[in-house]
């Protein structure tokens, strides 16, 4: 058992989807703590530690909805990849869309994965566990060392 849950930024505007993700997380027992940003602007503010998010710890991973109000997932991803302090942050696009166009756009902007939101709680639960096991247990992420070097 790891000491503290890994922080994951969930960028999601729909309250039902936030609730479903929280439920799936709880059921899966994954050691994750979701920080929720309701739109693209809030997501960038969180990642930049601005305003209400001053001092907020950087997440290990971002789950990014693609169609977002204010600032789209595409714009958020472009800004993350264009920011020297954020560009290595793993970003998984998690969206309703399964369109070829969106998939191509996401990967060409440097998304680490494109995932279509599943139907069915069992599949949603499985997805959350898979994300934890693969991205937060198996994979080595650059974030920790990056943050250390910034400090």
């Amino acid at each position, binding site marked *: 058992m790891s000491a503290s849950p890994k922080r994951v930024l969930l960028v999601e505007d729909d309250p039902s*989807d936030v609730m479903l993700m929280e439920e799936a997380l709880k059921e899966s027992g994954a050691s994750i703590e979701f920080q929720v940003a309701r739109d693209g602007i809030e997501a960038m503010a969180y990642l930049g530690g601005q305003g209400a998010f001053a001092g907020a710890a950087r997440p290990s991973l971002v789950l990014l909805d693609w169609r977002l109000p204010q600032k789209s997932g595409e714009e958020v991803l472009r800004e993350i990849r264009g920011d020297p302090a954020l560009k290595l942050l793993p970003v998984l696009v998690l969206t*309703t*869309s399964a369109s070829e166009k969106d998939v191509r756009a996401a990967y060409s902007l440097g998304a680490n994965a494109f995932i279509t939101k599943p*139907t069915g709680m069992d599949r949603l639960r499985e997805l959350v566990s898979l994300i934890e096991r693969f991205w937060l247990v198996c994979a080595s992420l650059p974030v920790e060392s990056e943050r250390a070097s910034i400090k």
Partner: protein
Amino acid sequence: MRTERQSREDELQTRLDLAEARFRALAERLPIITYVSAMDVQGAFTYISPQVEPLLGYKPAEWTTGRGLWLQRMDPDDRQRILPLLARAHRSGERFSMEYRLRDRAGVAKWILDESEAVRDEAGRARFIQGTWTDVTERKRLEQESARAGRELASSRSELEQFVSVTSHELKAPLRRIVNLGEMLAQRHGSRIPAEATGLLAQIRDSAAAAQELLAGLVVYAETDRRAALAPVDMEEVARRAFEELAESIAASGARVTRGALPKVWAEPALLERVLCNLVDNALKFRGKASPEAHLWAERSGKEWVISLRDNGIGIHPRQAQRIFSIFERLHTREEYGGVGLGLAVCKKIVERLGGRIWVESEPGEGSTFHFTLRAAPEGSSA
């Protein structure tokens, strides 16, 4: 003898006159206008056939006296385009063929196809221009109309694509939430939910799932609208992939699906795979009492291949054979056979997009054989 020569010349002259009269009578009855004009001076007609009058309202004499009429009646935009080309063509000895507008006496623009050539003497010097005018106004009108219709169609197509893409996304998200929230409700409060409410929850879930399936089908149907990029395709490869995709449902239904040798055809692999999947899926779905069997094979017919899938399912009455290819056409209730009635409509749309035809031969209780045609591709061509 002088008189003899005289009479011989007279006779020649008479024959010449007769030949010219005959030629003129012919030229003047043709549905095109013939003309002769001077070299180097554009629009200076020395002859123009009388058909010009009904078309443009000016008598031949009005065209052959003053030479300003032609230029004056020509559409100004066309004038800039035509005159340099005309001069160049006649100097170089090429045949000139252009379309431009001449306004008739009432000011109405008529489209003229003007085809002319310089006539040369024995020394090869250009002496005069001989040409024809054909009235192509009606053809031009039809061309412009069809171009406009084409543009309108393209714009309504792209609007439709946009509409489908937006609505499908906007509908997909809430449907997924309905299913997931329903499950969440059942999981959290399962023990406290009365049995009747559990049944209702299941119905909500099924309805949302059906709507999701319908939506996915509609998206496929709408996306089929885009133009297919045809290339030689190895159907063996496509069928292998289609059977792989269906492996699970084939196994689940206990079906035996076989295939003969398949050819190379002109198609788009993804679209062709969709056709095969839908047809096989259809054969599995509309099964009779016996375990489903289906066989896929191809037969050459002239420049085409006829690809066929025979099944041992419930069959279709010949009266219904056309209806099954229409969108949302269901011959059975959803309780009897699942699905949203889009599979065969998608097949028809794709096959037609690939330049082929699709039809079914069947009798109730006798199974069905679906046939579709595709253009044969050379056997050596790559897939």
